[in-house]
């Protein structure tokens, strides 16, 4: 009986060549893509702007023909307005007059103004908790600037700046650590981002935390960062895990305010 065997040495050498080829592609790609980092975003920004504009025009045009649909969209916009007002209420400072006196004592002013920017790209288009906004170096945006919702809650910081666009890294990005304070107990904690607008906090077992508690930024402005959603505690653990969620729905953010 005639038997055929694979020529092992040749196949192994071919495989080595393929691996080297793939490594070469990776090296070439890294070189090209990272040298031209800003070029891709700047090239895509007009397309994203056009897409945002067209989606608005399309929604307006089709609303005339679909009365039922228009009621649905009105319902959606009213719900959005309601959640925005709820958010504004939730984001209020702990005690306005006390906070104002505290800021005056520190010779600091409450931040109210800032640069408003439109959001070009948001999750779920971005796989990471990153926003791309339509304001950049030309508009005076600098890396490290704080990005917040118009209602008040702070979302993240500007991580990269290009000509007319910027990238915003949200505090909820996986692995991102942010100093915060549990409002109920005044306990300083580290908020660890776990993606999708979610956070995880480890607090001592004895700490009093309840669902709905607010977690505020550790700076003097005490801005809302997250709201407690779930508390996990194991009988053998000395810490409990507090799962919390950012107050905003990342998938619907349209405008942000940038403050230096």
């Amino acid at each position, binding site marked *: 009986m005639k038997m055929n065997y*694979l020529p092992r040495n040749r*196949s192994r050498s071919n*495989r080595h060549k*393929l*691996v080297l*080829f*793939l*490594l070469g*592609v*990776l090296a070439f*790609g*890294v070189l090209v*893509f*990272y040298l*031209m*980092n800003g070029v*891709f*975003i700047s090239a*895509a920004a007009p*397309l*994203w702007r056009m*897409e945002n504009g067209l989606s608005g025009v399309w929604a307006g045009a089709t609303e005339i023909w679909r009365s039922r649909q228009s009621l649905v969209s009105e319902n959606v916009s009213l719900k959005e307005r309601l959640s925005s007002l709820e958010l504004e209420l939730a984001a209020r400072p702990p005690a306005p007059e006390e906070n104002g006196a505290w800021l005056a004592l520190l010779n600091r002013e409450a931040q109210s103004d800032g640069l408003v920017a439109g959001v070009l*790209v948001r*999750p*779920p*288009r*971005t*796989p*990471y908790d*990153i926003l*791309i906004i339509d304001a950049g170096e030309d508009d005076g945006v600098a890396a490290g600037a704080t990005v917040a919702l118009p209602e008040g809650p702070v979302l993240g910081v500007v*991580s*990269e700046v290009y000509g007319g666009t910027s*990238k915003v*890294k949200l505090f909820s*990005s996986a692995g991102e650590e942010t100093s915060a304070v549990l409002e109920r107990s005044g306990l300083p904690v580290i908020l660890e981002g776990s993606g999708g607008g979610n956070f995880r906090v480890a607090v001592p077992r004895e700490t009093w935390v309840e669902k709905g508690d607010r977690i505020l930024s550790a700076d003097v402005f005490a801005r809302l960062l997250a709201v407690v959603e779930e508390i996990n505690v194991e009988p053998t653990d000395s810490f409990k895990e507090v799962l919390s969620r950012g107050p905003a729905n990342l998938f619907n953010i349209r405008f942000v305010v940038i403050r230096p």
Partner: protein
Amino acid sequence: MSYRPITTILLVVSIFFLPYWFYISALVVAMAAFPLYWESILLGLLIDVLYGERIDSFSAFLFSAGFLALAGLLILLPLRARLRSHASH
């Protein structure tokens, strides 16, 4: 025109305009469907450049979409070779 360049173009368009769960799953399917789909590495790097953070450490590089695409191709390489050799007999 073969399916391969058309798929690559559609994937580029979807990276720009569609949610991540669509283009990442489509990329994985393309890697399995086409032999040695090296374009997936470049597409992964495009995702990183557009939507990722600046890579400033080796550990960050290990979790970048470009590197994961390379790892996926390296895993698929022997698997595909075995499937092919069995199919040909």
